[in-house]
């Protein structure tokens, strides 16, 4: 697996190659029983966008304090050798802000170290 988290600021990007097919990965993301197994510490409050098996966008809340909220978007496409290329974008989102219809892209922020 490889990941890239080049962005800094209030959004994080990761990209990984998974061995399983997109349809299997989709189920692991979408079906709560599976999702709890690999993502036990985030509560899904709402499914914001769902385009099986290509894109899933979730409004999540940390199960533990400080219960920070975020929008996690998964983009799936067929990877090499029958696997899945998975891109993950995690956007930090305060509880009281409205949910953007299509935010994320412009949240990338460059900060001086």
């Amino acid at each position, binding site marked *: 697996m490889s990941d890239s988290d080049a962005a800094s*600021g*209030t959004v994080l990007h990761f990209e990984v190659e998974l061995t*399983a097919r997109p349809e*299997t990965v989709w189920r692991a993301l979408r079906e709560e029983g599976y999702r709890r*197994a690999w*993502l036990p510490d985030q509560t899904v409050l709402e499914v914001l966008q769902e385009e099986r098996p290509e894109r899933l966008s979730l409004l999540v809340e940390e199960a533990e304090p400080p219960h920070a909220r975020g929008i996690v978007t998964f983009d799936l496409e067929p990877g090499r050798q029958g696997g899945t290329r998975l891109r993950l974008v*995690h956007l930090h989102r*305060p509880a009281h802000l409205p949910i953007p219809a299509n935010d994320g892209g*412009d949240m990338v922020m460059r*900060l001086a170290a």
Partner: protein
Amino acid sequence: MEQAIFKALGDATRRHIFEKLADGPQSATALRDGMAISQPAMSQHLAVLREAGLVQEKRVGRFTEYAVEPQGLAVLGGWLAKYRAYWPERLAGLEALTVEMERGEKAR
């Protein structure tokens, strides 16, 4: 404090202003350079950033300069540090689970 920070940065114009300040302290006039924004609007955005603890104001002679507040950056950094470590771990778990799911399908 954390909520105020992310609320302040929920606005694209303020993110842009904050980014500019990350390159170094500047006056409000210099900040407006290249931005289609009125002076009162700039003052308002700077006030929001300052209240969120992201930006500090300094008097330099007759001028006021704005700079990034290091503590505000630290809060942003905390979230980043946490999730930079978090996601690779979780995605490794996702890899293991999905491989297992397909193995189970084949066995049936």
